[in-house]
């Protein structure tokens, strides 16, 4: 999660690489409790996130997005 880009930066990176018809959609929020399902988030990290991430952001710490694009012909 720490390496994730902002959505616009992600889209720009795809466009700058030369892809065409870039489309982003199907956004899914990922919060602390959902992260706790994933074993890559250690119990210590989940506890830390519960402690330091503001309450109004606990349900949407990150957002997954689908990015579609096409290589030019």
């Amino acid at each position: 999660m720490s390496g994730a880009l902002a959505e616009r930066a992600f889209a720009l990176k795809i466009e700058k690489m030369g892809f065409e018809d870039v489309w982003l959609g199907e956004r899914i929020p990922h919060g602390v409790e959902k992260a706790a399902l994933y074993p890559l988030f250690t119990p210590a990290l989940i506890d830390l996130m519960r402690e330091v991430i503001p309450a109004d952001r606990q349900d949407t710490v990150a957002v997954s997005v689908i990015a579609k694009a096409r290589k030019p012909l």
Partner: protein
Amino acid sequence: MTDMLFQNEINDVVRTAYAGIEHGAGKPAADLLYSPEELDQLPEEAVGWALGVGNPVRHAELEPGETVLDVGSGGGIDTILAAKLVGPTGHAIGLDVLDEMLDRARTHAAAAGVEDWTEFVKGEMEAIPLPDASVDVVISNGVINLSPRKSRVLAEIMRVLKPGGRICIADLTVEDELPPEVMANEAAWAG
């Protein structure tokens, strides 16, 4: 040089974290991402290894006969679903850097009955071991954010795609900076 060392440290953290886990996020996470019909096509063990953040296959518009590459294939869920759609006239390739994940994915693909047109290859997403212009579609699920060299990953994806080829990538985005205590936690680079 400092940047390269930092990149290598991140890669080591991510690989160590993924190599050390003994299960995925399991059915509770898979139920949030995949339809019951999709889950019915997967071996139970594969569902247990769900680690993705979206459902790229649903949006990839895969056609029978296409060659699809799954970058960071993990336990193989998306590779298997893609293989079902491209069928035996197509080819599904899962790419992962960890032998443990590759072994699991091969077992899951065999249990799903797609092993004859599915292969799992070892390699880094920053140096994909496939020829130029050899793939119709590249999918990926929650993996590109793990790389400290995202432009390099996208350049490699561009290289292996055929002209007119497509990408359909699910990945995490973060709009507001994470608290510094979280950013500094090694596990947050792998999760």
